[in-house]
């Protein structure tokens, strides 16, 4: 009861619910599918993105304006949420937002290795995690990748980066380092959640669901790309699927048998229901958006069951993330002159 009737929890969860209600509805995306980039920019400048569009309107134009405004808004929104969340919720939210640190550091490293301009890399960074704008600017100002890694000394990412970077530099591929960073991220989340802090079990349930969804998606992607080797590197520990099962599932050639076996191994109810609908083979992007939808529905359910917990915050953080992803996908799709139906398939609604 202690947690469930705490006033700060009620305060912040109500705010999250209202913010969630302000997100763009499905109908709005459907309308946007038939608009040009400038029209989309105008429409979103009348919503929560107004401030960013106004601020950046003089510096950027077209798709760049949209991209930067979306990233800035997402970062600002996440930082504000961190400011208003109380006690243990803040700790969990901060832990969850470290995901963006990995993304930002990898973006900087990849950008630098491909010789991209600093300004161009900065446009796609989302300073929503522990590394703030000042720190990211410092990293961007470094001229070599070794110095970027050194600048991160003392941060949580550093041990993995220092361990994996030499190999990544040699092969020219950051894939293994990325996998290791995410594995460490999830391991830390589990450690934070199971540290005996109140509300930790709810956070743990979310992490487990997230890991399961990620592992299943990886399996589908591996099937689509017909990759057999080093699958254990891509496996994230902590979900309901074990490492051995993950490797075994990847060796199954027949699609039907794969689905049947996956159904046996997965114990998450809603994912199981989805697998029942996947009897026929579908493209990976469709499966990805179906899995995300199932994950969101399950989280919504959990947030209704535990109205004053970490769930309403996580649901909002995730939905906001997908709103920005959707708008970005829409803008990029329009820029590449893709037909509306094709863009629509990639949106998470």
């Amino acid at each position, binding site marked *: 009861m202690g947690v469930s009737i705490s*006033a*700060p929890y*009620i*305060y912040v969860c109500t705010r999250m619910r209202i*913010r969630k209600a302000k997100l763009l509805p499905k109908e709005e995306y459907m309308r946007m599918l038939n608009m040009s980039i400038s029209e989309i920019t105008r429409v979103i400048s009348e919503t929560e993105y107004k401030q960013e569009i106004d601020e950046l309107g003089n510096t950027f134009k077209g798709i760049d304006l949209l991209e930067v405004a979306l990233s800035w808004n997402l970062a600002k929104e996440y930082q504000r949420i961190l400011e208003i969340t109380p006690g243990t919720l803040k700790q969990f939210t901060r832990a969850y937002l470290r995901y963006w640190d990995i993304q930002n550091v990898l973006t900087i490293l990849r950008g630098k290795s491909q010789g991209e301009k600093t300004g161009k890399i900065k446009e796609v960074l989302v300073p929503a995690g522990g590394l703030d704008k000042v720190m990211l600017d410092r990293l961007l100002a470094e001229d070599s990748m070794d110095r970027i890694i050194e600048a991160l000394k003392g941060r949580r990412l550093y041990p993995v980066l220092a361990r994996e970077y030499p190999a990544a530099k040699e092969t020219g591929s950051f894939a293994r380092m990325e996998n290791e960073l995410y594995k460490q991220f999830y391991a830390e989340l589990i450690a934070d959640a199971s540290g005996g802090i109140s509300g930790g079990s709810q956070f743990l349930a979310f992490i487990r669901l997230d890991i399961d969804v990620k592992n299943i998606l990886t399996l589908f992607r591996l099937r689509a790309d017909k990759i057999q080797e080093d699958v254990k590197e891509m496996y994230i520990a902590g979900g309901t699927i074990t490492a051995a099962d993950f490797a075994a599932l990847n060796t199954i050639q027949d699609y039907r048998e794969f689905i049947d076996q996956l159904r046996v191994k997965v114990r998450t109810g809603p994912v199981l229901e989805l697998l029942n609908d996947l009897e026929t083979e579908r493209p990976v992007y469709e499966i990805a958006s179906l899995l995300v939808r199932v994950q969101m529905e399950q989280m919504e359910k959990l947030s209704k069951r535990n109205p004053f917990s970490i769930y309403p915050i996580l649901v909002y953080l995730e939905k906001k993330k997908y709103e920005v992803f959707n708008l970005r996908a829409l803008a990029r799709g329009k820029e590449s002159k893709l037909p509306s139906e094709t863009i629509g398939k990639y949106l998470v609604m």
Partner: protein
Amino acid sequence: MVDVNMTLEMVQASQMGMKALGAGLAVGLTGIGTGVAEMAIGSAAVGATAENKEIFGLALLFTVIPETIVIFGLVVGLLLLFV
């Protein structure tokens, strides 16, 4: 329990004391009940108002609805003391 050796005045004073105690409890306990109810509604109302200032009036109305409980307590207290 009434002591047989008590005088009429003593019994009346005791009854008055009991009434006062009852009235105090009626107001006090309902006050606590109202406070608990308003804590949850108030925090949600402040949260909602922070996001959307237009609903301040409505949020305030929702927050004071549990006041009825303490008013019932007050009425019971007054009835005990003066009727």
